[in-house]
C-alpha cells in the first residue's frame, strides 16, 4: 500500500481497512472473526473472535475449558490498535488477571503487571484484560513501512502471548 510508506502512525481509516481485510480472510477460511460497528463513534469499528481452549488450573494442573473473546479495536488517543480480551469459564464467570496469569505459561517469570493489564475497551468502555500497550507503537513502527497489513503483522507478534495464533493465510497478506 502506497500510504504505508509515509506513515509514522496507523490512521483510524487504515486500521478500518486492515481489520476489514482480516474479516474477509477469516470468512474464506471460517476462522470466526466478526466485524462489530458502534455507529456514533469515530473509532467504532472493531473485530471480535471467540475461541475455546484448555487452561491448566493452577491448583491441581487439571485442564479447564475456557472461552477467550478477543477484541481488536483502535485507540484514538495513541493512534494504535489494541488487543484486549475476556476469558470465561463454561458457567460464564470471568477469569481475573491473577487467575489467568497463574495458568499461562507463556509469561514465564516476567512481572505480571508489566505484561498484562486491565484496561477499558476503547469502544465499549468496559474493563478488559490486555497485553500492556506500552510497546505497541514500537512494534507497529517496524511494520508500518513494510507490511501490507500492519495490524496482522502486529497481531502475529503479540497474539501468541495470549493464545491467539494467526493462521498462515493471514500472514500471506502482509
Amino acid at each position, binding site marked *: 500500500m502506497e500510504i504505508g510508506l509515509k506513515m509514522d502512525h496507523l490512521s483510524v481509516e487504515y486500521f478500518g481497512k486492515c481489520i476489514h481485510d482480516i474479516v474477509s480472510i477469516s470468512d474464506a477460511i471460517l476462522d470466526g472473526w466478526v466485524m462489530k460497528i458502534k455507529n456514533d463513534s469515530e473509532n467504532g469499528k472493531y473485530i471480535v473472535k*471467540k475461541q475455546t481452549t484448555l487452561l491448566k488450573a493452577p491448583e491441581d494442573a487439571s485442564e479447564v475449558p475456557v*472461552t477467550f473473546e478477543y477484541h481488536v479495536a483502535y485507540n484514538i488517543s495513541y493512534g494504535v490498535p489494541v488487543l484486549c480480551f475476556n476469558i470465561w469459564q*463454561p458457567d460464564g464467570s470471568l477469569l481475573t488477571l491473577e487467575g489467568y496469569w497463574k495458568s499461562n505459561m507463556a509469561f514465564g517469570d516476567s512481572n505480571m503487571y508489566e505484561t498484562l493489564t486491565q484496561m477499558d475497551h476503547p469502544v465499549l468502555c468496559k474493563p478488559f484484560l490486555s497485553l500492556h500497550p506500552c510497546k505497541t507503537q514500537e512494534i507497529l513502527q517496524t511494520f508500518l513501512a513494510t507490511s501490507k497489513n500492519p495490524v496482522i503483522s502486529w497481531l502475529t507478534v503479540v497474539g501468541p502471548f495470549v493464545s491467539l495464533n494467526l493462521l498462515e493465510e493471514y500472514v500471506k497478506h502482509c
Partner: protein
Amino acid sequence: MTTLSYVQLSSSINPSFWNKLSELKLDVFKLNEDGKDIWGYFPITVLIVSSTNCATPFLEVDSTSFNSEVNGQLTYLKFHGKLYNKNTLEQFKECNKMELINGVGQSITEQIISGKALCDPSILNTFLLLSFADLKKYHYYYWFGFPVPKGLVIEKIASSPIIEEFSLELAEKIHNGYKQLAINQRCYFLVIKGKSGLEVYTLAEKLKDINLEDIPEVYFVFHNISSVSSSIGSQLRNYVTLLLHECKFLANEQVNFIAFHLSREKSRITCLDSICYKLKLPAVADSTLTSEWVGWEKNERGKMGPKLANLKNSLDPLIISENAVDLNLKLMKWNLVPSIDLDKLKNTKCLLLGSGTLGCSVARTLLGWGVRNITFVDNSAVSYSNPVRQSLYTYQDSVEMKPKADAAAENIRKIFPGVNSIGYQMTIPMPGHTVGDSMVNQTKETVEKLIQLIESHDVIFLLMDSRESRWLPTLLANAQQKVVLNAALGFDSYLVMRHGIYVENATEQSMEHPEGYRVIDGANLGCYFCNDVTAPCNSMKNRTLDQQCTVTRPGVSQIAGSLAVELAVSLIQHKDGVHAPAFYTTSQNVSSQDLSDINPSNLGLVPHSIRGFLSSFEQFLPATQKYKNCVACSDMIIQEYKEKGMEFLLEVFNSSKHLEDVALLTEMLKETDFGEVLEFSDEDFCSQSSQ
C-alpha cells in the same frame, strides 16, 4: 453388532447471557415462568481448528440468544432452546425435571409429525435450560438438557472414512452442495448417488420420494457435533426419529449415514474427515418415541444435577468498579513503588473536619488512593456559591440547601459506591465563644461526639475555615495520639502541615542529617498553634491565613487539599509512621536531593509543613519545634485536659484567656521576644511572597 455411543454437548455460557437474563427477568419476564424461546450456537470453528486441544463440544448461549431472529453467522449451527426461569430456588429444585424434558421432547415429536421439522430440520437440534437467577447475589442456578428419545437404539454395522466410499471429486461435490444450502438446512440433509451422478438435497426436497429400493444410493447426512470425528453427537437420535416417521420402511433396515465434519487442510476447508456409517435402524412406533426423553447435562462432579454460577465478580458493577480502582493502584505498586502498602491505606479511617472546598478536595484525593472510610463533619448547608468550588456538590444541593456533611457523604458514594461515608452536622465548640447555660448540655454532647469520632478514626484532617475551630480537635486528637493533617488557606497562599505526635515527656533525639539541614523527630514537631503565641481568640493581627470571609484563588483549595492527602499518605507509608522525622533547611542553596538517601520513605520526603504562594508559584517546606507553651499541644494543656476534662474545656470556651493561663503564656508574654520563639511566622512568608 455394536450399539452406537454418543457424545453429548456441554453448555458454555457467555457472561452476557446472565446479564441479559437478569435484565429481562426484571423488566419483561417478571414473575412469568412460561417457557421462553432462546437460541443456542454451536461453533463449527471448534471442529475446524483441530489444533485447539479442547475435545468437548460446547453449545454457547449469549445475550443474542434472547433475540427473536437468530444470529445467522456462517460459523455456527443454531440450536432451538426453551428457557424455564423459575422465581424461587425451591421451585427450581422441586419442579419435575422428567416432565420438563419430556415436554420439550414432545414438542420435537409434534413438529416432526406436523412436518415442520422436515422443512426446518434445525428443530431437531433442541435444548432446554432450567434456571433460577438470584439477582441480589448474582448467583445463577441452572441446568441444561439436550433431549433425545430414550427408547431408540441404533446399531452400528460398519463405518469407513468418506474417501473410501466417495472419490475426492465427489466428496468435494458434497462439500459444495453443503455450501449451497440455507444455514438451517446444513445440519441435516441428503446425498443421493444416482445414475445421473451425485446430488445434494434438503430433506424437504427429496425425503418423501425415497423408496425402499433407493436405500443403497441414499446417504442421510448429519452435521456431527463431536470434535472427534469417530464419535457421534447424540442429536442423531432425533434425526432417526424424523426419518422413521417419514419413511416407515426404514425400520429394521441397514441405512447409510454420513457424519459430516469440516476440517482444515492447509488453507482449505474440506469435509474429508467425515465418516460414513452403515446403521441399522430400530422398529419403534411413534408413541414409544414420544413418551420418554433423556439428556440432562452432568454437573462438574459428573453427577446428574444442576450447576451454580457465581457471577458476583463478573457482573456486579459495584465489584467491577472496586476491582478497577484497586487495580489502578496495584499497577502503581508493581510498576513504580513496589514497597507501598495499599491495604494500609484502604483500611485507614479518615475524619474530615470541615466539608468545604478543602474537605471536598481532600475526600476526592483520598478516593484516588483507595481509602474506603471517609467521615464528613460540617455545620453549614450547601449555598449557591459552593458547587463551583466545592467539588462534591451540585446546583441541586444548593437549591435544596442540603447540610454539607450529608450531601458530601451521599455524593461521594455516587462517585464511588465502594466507599463507606457518613456525615455529621455539628458545630465544633471554640475557645472564647461563650457557652450559655442553656447550651451547656448540647456543647457537652458535641464534645463527646467529637471525642468519639476522633477515637474511631486514624487520620484527622482539619479543614475548617476558622482558626478557632481547629483548637478543640487539635487538642483532642493530640491527647489520643492520632495523626493530624491541617490545611489552611489565604487569598493566594496555603499552609499544609502534619501535627507532631504527642508523647508524654518526649525527649529530643539527635539524628543524622546532611549538611545544611536540620531535623526534628515526629514527637517534637509543632502543631498549628505552636507558631502563634497568643490563644486563638478573635484574631488580633491582620492575618492572611484562615481569616473569616477569606477569599481565595479557586485553585488554592485544590492544591492544598491534594497536598494534605499526599502528605498523609507519605506519612502513613513511612517506616516510622507519625514518628517520621522532618528535615528542613533555612538556606536557599541546599538541594533537597541530598535527603533521599537519609530519609528512607518509599514515597520520598515527609515534611512537617508545606507553604505555598501562588503570587510567585513558590513552595517552602519549613519545620517547627513543638512549642513548650503551646495553647493546643503543650504538655501543660494536655495534662490539664486529662485531669479536668469537660470542666477545663468549658472554661476555655467561656474565656480563651484561661488557655493562656494554663499554658503559662501570660507569664511569658511579659518577658519574651517573639522573634526568637518562632522559626517562621506567616508574616515572614507573606513579606517574602509579596516581594
